[in-house]
Each structure stands twice: as C-alpha cells, then as structure tokens.
C-alpha cells in the first residue's frame, strides 16, 4: 500500500523527444488513478518511469513516501502489466505467476509460493490453466495470467498498461467488471493507463488526461465528462465525438440567445436561470460543444423541437443509433438516439437541446470558458 508522487518529472530520450515535461502527479494511497490519453501522449513512458525501467532526467519520484530516483526496478516493489502481456513464453502459467515470488530478494519458501499462486488463481479463475504455456492461451486468458503475475506479491503499487486493449469487446466488458471487483477486494494503489475513455470512466477514482507529456486535467469521471477543461479533453471523452460549432451568444430581455448555425441560422433561446442555477455564458464569440446525446430528434411539425434539420445518415447500432443531421444545409451535427427511433435518410425533422449540457470554449485558446452547470 502506498502513494505515488511525481514532482516535476522530466523524461527525454536520446533522440531529443521529450515524453514527460515537468509532470506533477499525486496518486493517493489506495486510489485507482487512470491516465487517459491518445497513443504517443507518453502514457507508457510514465508507467515505465514509475517502475524504474526508464530513468527520469529531472524532478523527483516518491513511492510510499520514499524517494526512489535512481533505485533499480527490482528494488521498488511495484508490479506492472504490459500491453503486450509480456508473459515468459518458455515458462508455464504456474511458473509465470510464481516468478515474482521466487526472486532471491524475497527468499519465500516453496510451499508459500504455491499457496500464493493458488490464491491468485482462485481469484482470477485460472486454476485450470496452470500447466499451459502462454502460446496456448486466448487473449483474455493471457490477460488474467499477466494480472495474476502482477498481484501475486502484494506490491506497493500496481502499474497497468492498457490491460484491456488486446482482448475482444466481449471479454473486455467482463474484464472491466472484474477489475472493478478486484480493486475493491485488493485496495492497492493503482496507476492505470488507457486510451479508452470508457475504461477510464468505469474504473477510476480520478482520471488524469495526459497530453504532450503533461496532465491537462485531473478530476473525477463525472468532472472529466461534464466539465472538460478544453476542447481536446471534450473530444477524447465521449462517443460519438462531441459536436463543435462556432456560436454567437447574446444576453437580451432575460434570455440567452445562442446562434450556433451562422448569423442567418436558427437561434436558440434559453432562460437565464434553468431551475438548477443561473446560466452564465457570457456575450460574444464561442465554440459551442454539444454532446451528441443531448440532441433530441422530433418529427417535423410536432412542435417539440426548435431547430429544423434534415437526416443525412442514420446508422442503427445494437443499443443506440447514430444520426448525422444537416442544419441550415451546411452544419453537420451528430446525434445519439435510441435505436427504436425510426429515421430515414432525407427525412425532415426538428431538434431540441438541453441547454444545461452546453459547453462553451474560447475559439482561439480552446479552453473551457466557464464551469457548466450540471444537474
């Protein structure tokens, strides 16, 4: 059990690329912290730096309050899973899992090794695989074995590198639930990196968004989703991708007037207060972020919508449908609707929006203008 503290960590490589740029991060004791970022953002470098596989060039690193700059990986008592699983191909599943216990550093007696491996196998339900070799396992099974190897020796911290990226969708869903369950049982400080925002939201106590070697936002899953600090965070979290529209906002006669579809396009009116609190949007040019699922589609003429639109493509998926809409013949909008809403390409519809879910960004800096209200 222990905390992780990164104090202005710099990691650059001999070829001059700077992977981590004065990164500050504090993962609390027993916290499940997820680093979310696109590939190439420096996620794996961050994990390997904490593990001691990479030496940072600047700053200080503390694990469980102990400064570990320069301490070799075998003396940090961390456990890590790799995106490639990194199972030893010449060893059986049993030997793979037992490997951390057999290190001469710990001198654990044989029967205890056996007991611990058994405990982990029961937890992960891989007892029947012990005599197999890694190449005889499916992706999901490899995943479990690599987790088993990481948790067999009660480490100070878990470092998990994209553990679910190489298992198929069905298994991924089950493993996600299982990781949730394991986390509750083990309560070990965990640093988890992924590019999949669903994993981040589902698993994390807190999420950190990594971009160009720095954390641009740290917050709870709901904060990250509802109050993204900038456009790129908003684009990364959520599917389909958030709609971004240039909008002109004015305050007049106790109402906000929002024009997201050009000067001549439809205007949206919102009361200054929406019941939950005051809406403070600020007059001027904005970049309006509109979550696809905050758009409701109504039949034309029903009077329920405020903006006329035409269906461009409607793609029904299993549990939802994604609809691309055209507003004023030029602005494309993506909407997420229930699958039973029958929509044909070319159909004329009208849209309504939930104003409390609007996000406003500065058109030049792309920073969130204000903290949006959420119910």
């Amino acid at each position: 059990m222990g905390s992780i503290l990164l104090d202005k960590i710099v990691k650059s490589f001999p070829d001059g690329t700077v992977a981590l740029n004065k990164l500050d991060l504090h993962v609390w004791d027993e916290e499940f912290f997820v680093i979310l970022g696109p590939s190439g953002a420096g996620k794996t470098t961050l994990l390997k730096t904490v593990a001691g596989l990479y030496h940072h060039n600047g700053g200080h690193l503390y694990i469980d309050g102990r400064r570990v700059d320069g301490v070799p990986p075998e003396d940090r008592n961390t456990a890590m899973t790799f995106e490639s699983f990194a199972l030893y191909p010449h060893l059986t599943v049993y030997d793979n899992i037992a490997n951390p216990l057999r290190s001469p550093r710990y001198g654990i007696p044989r029967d205890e090794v056996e007991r611990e491996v058994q405990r982990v196998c029961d937890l992960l339900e891989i007892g029947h695989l012990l005599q197999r070799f890694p190449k005889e396992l499916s992706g999901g099974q490899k995943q479990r074995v690599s987790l088993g190897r990481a948790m067999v020796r009660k480490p100070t911290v878990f470092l998990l590198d994209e553990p679910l990226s190489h298992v198929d969708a069905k298994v991924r869903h089950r493993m996600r639930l299982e990781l949730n369950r394991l986390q509750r049982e083990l309560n070990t400080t965990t640093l988890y990196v992924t590019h999949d925002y669903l994993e981040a939201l589902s698993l994390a106590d807190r999420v950190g968004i990594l971009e160009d070697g720095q954390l641009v936002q740290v917050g709870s899953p709901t904060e990250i989703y509802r109050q993204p600090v900038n456009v790129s965070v908003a684009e990364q979290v959520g599917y389909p991708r958030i709609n971004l529209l240039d909008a002109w906002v004015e305050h007049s006669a106790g109402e906000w007037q929002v024009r997201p579809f050009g000067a001549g396009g439809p205007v949206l009116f919102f009361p200054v207060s929406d019941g939950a609190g005051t809406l403070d949007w600020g007059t001027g040019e904005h970049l309006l972020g509109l979550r696809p699922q905050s758009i409701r589609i109504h039949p034309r003429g029903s009077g329920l919508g405020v903006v006329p639109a035409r269906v461009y493509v409607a793609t029904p998926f299993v549990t939802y449908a994604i609809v691309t809409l055209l507003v004023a013949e030029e602005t494309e909008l993506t909407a997420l609707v229930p699958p039973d809403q029958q929509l044909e390409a070319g159909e004329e519809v009208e849209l309504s929006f939930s104003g409390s879910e609007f996000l406003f960004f500065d058109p030049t800096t792309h920073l969130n203008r204000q903290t949006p209200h959420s119910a």
Partner: protein
Amino acid sequence: MPSVRLQQVNKIYRSKRERVHAVRDLNLGITEGEFMCLLGPSGCGKTSSLRMIVGLESISSGEIWIGDRLVNDLSPQERNVAMSFESYALYTHLSVGENITFPLKAKGMPPPERRKRLVEVASMLEISSLLKMTPSSLSSGQMQQVSLARALIREPSVFLLDEPLSHLDVNLRVYTRNRIKRLHTELDTTMIYVTHDQLEAVALADRIAVMNFAELQQVGTREELLDRPANRFVADFIGEPPINFYEVEIQEDLRETTLRETSGAFSLPLPSRWESILDQLEGTVFEIGVRPHDITLHDRGYPQSVQGECEIFEFLGEENHLTLKVGEVRMTLVVSNREFFETGEKVTVYLDPNRIHLFSKDSGACLSSQLGSESASW
C-alpha cells in the same frame, strides 16, 4: 449485377495430423446489391467462406453461384469479384497509383483508359494526392483506402471485404466505416463483409449472417437478430453489454405458473404467450436471457420486479451501467447517465416480460423466437 448463392458448401482442411472442418453445410443467398456481413468469433469459418467465394480457396463440396454461373472451377480473375485484404496486401515496390491500376494492367487494358479510371476511383476515395507515394510512406488508414481503391477499380460485380477496419484506430474506423457505407449506396454493388465486430456488422449490413463453429447460426436483419435470436450463441454474441442469462425452473402452484431462478434469486410470472410451448417441452431445463437495455428501474411492486443490491456502478458518460447482485447471481442493466448508485444500495428493477428470451439449456435453441415466428406465420 448478380447475386451470390452458396449451396451446401463445405470446406475441409486436411493436414498430416488433423482434419479441420472449417465450413459445414453452408447455405446462404445474397441478393443483388445487398450488403451482407459474415459475423462471428475468430475461427468460425467466415474468412474461409469469403475466400471460397473469391476463389482463393478450393471448395471441398457444394456449389457456389455468382449470378447464373457456377463458379466452383473458375479462377479468381474469371469470377469478376474483388477483395480487399485485412493486411492490405499492397505491392511495396510500386507507387500507390501503380498499385491501384495493377488489376487493370493485368487485364491488358490500354494506359489512357487505366489513367481515366484511376482518376475516378482516386477522387471517389479522396486519395488523389497520394498516387505518387509509395505504400511504405502511408498511414494505415491511407493504406486501407488504397487497398479499397485497388479492389474498386475493376468495377467488380461482387465486392468482398475481409476485416477492413481491424487495424485502424477508433476515429479512423468510424470515418472509414461511413465511407464504406456510402460507397455501397453509390455503387450499388453486392458487398460481402467479414468481421468479428458486432457493431461494424450492425452499422453496415442489410443482413447479417452469424457463424460459429463452422456453421451458420442465423441470417437476418439487425432487428431479427436482436428480437428473435435463433439460439443462445446469437443472443450472447450480439448486444453490448452482453445479455444476462439465468437458468430457470418452472413452478406451478394453484394460482399461477412462475419461472424461478434455480438458485432462488428471483422468480417471475410466466409470460402467457409461452404457455403453449411449455406444454410440449416437459423435462427440459430452461434458461432465460434478458438484455441489459430491457431492464428498467422501477420502484413499484410489479410481479416482474426483481430486488438486488448495487455491486458495481459504472459511469460511462453517455450511459451508466449498473451490475446488481441478486441473491447468488448478477444482473447488468443500463441506466441513464443522470442516475447514480452507491455500492450496496438496494435497487428494484423491472423485467419486461415481452423482452425476455427463453432458451433450451441443452440445445441452446431459442424457444421464444420460434414461437414468435410461428405466431407470425399464422
């Protein structure tokens, strides 16, 4: 443009030690201009089927018809089909343009005509700026486009795609998927698309053929597969999060018949439409399947209500997933992103009796779907 018809097609691979029956008695008709997806887990025989249609793999037995021609003994060139490979299979020593026109050159088409076609195809796929480059300098998304272009330039009567999106990242995948969908609308070519991703299949296909263990499980539209799955496999394979299964026994007392979960976690009144089938199936062990989207939060005490306690709550942005512990079993349901639950919280949910699927535990067949189709035919 012709349709494709497979009759009793089998594919058996023989090696020294083993004999693998990769495709078993496959019967499948694909109508003109249709977008058909072959969907299934890896090793289910979908790629073998595709390769037999193209002609890259011999047919062990059965017949494959393209249009009114029996193509069993025709070479791939003679079948007038085109295929885009999972690995793109671009010729690294040729430029992008030469790669695309390669099939035409092989046919002996004169250069001016080749150039004309190249310009058309390149502009359709928006890759005109890449034609002078070499494949090694392309991103994976661009390679995918080039591979599509090379297949399209022949103006094939049937177009086959083998997992074309599997190597692309999420955003590119969505983009290319839309691109393929639009291509199909524009060209009106018969397309056969192989994938293991249910979302791709559902998003693209007019009809989906679900395969497992070398056999065709079911062919149908998205709605048919979801509402009337043929068996347990199809019900489990399609849908996210996955469907909840429970073994049930039927209990009759004086007043009513109920479905009781075997461990006693919950019981439900028997949907009345099932009474007719249950009479004929005495002694069968049953399983029910309920999709996470068909379970709703409901406080009122319906007989179809089930009480549980929140074990795992997942905030996922667009929607939230809730996994309940009900007695000994677990139940996953989808709730709106405005609903939040704490671990251990008591939750009451309602199972829509019209949306419960009934399976035979032994055969895996979906009994309620059979009922549905029977009543439809009456």
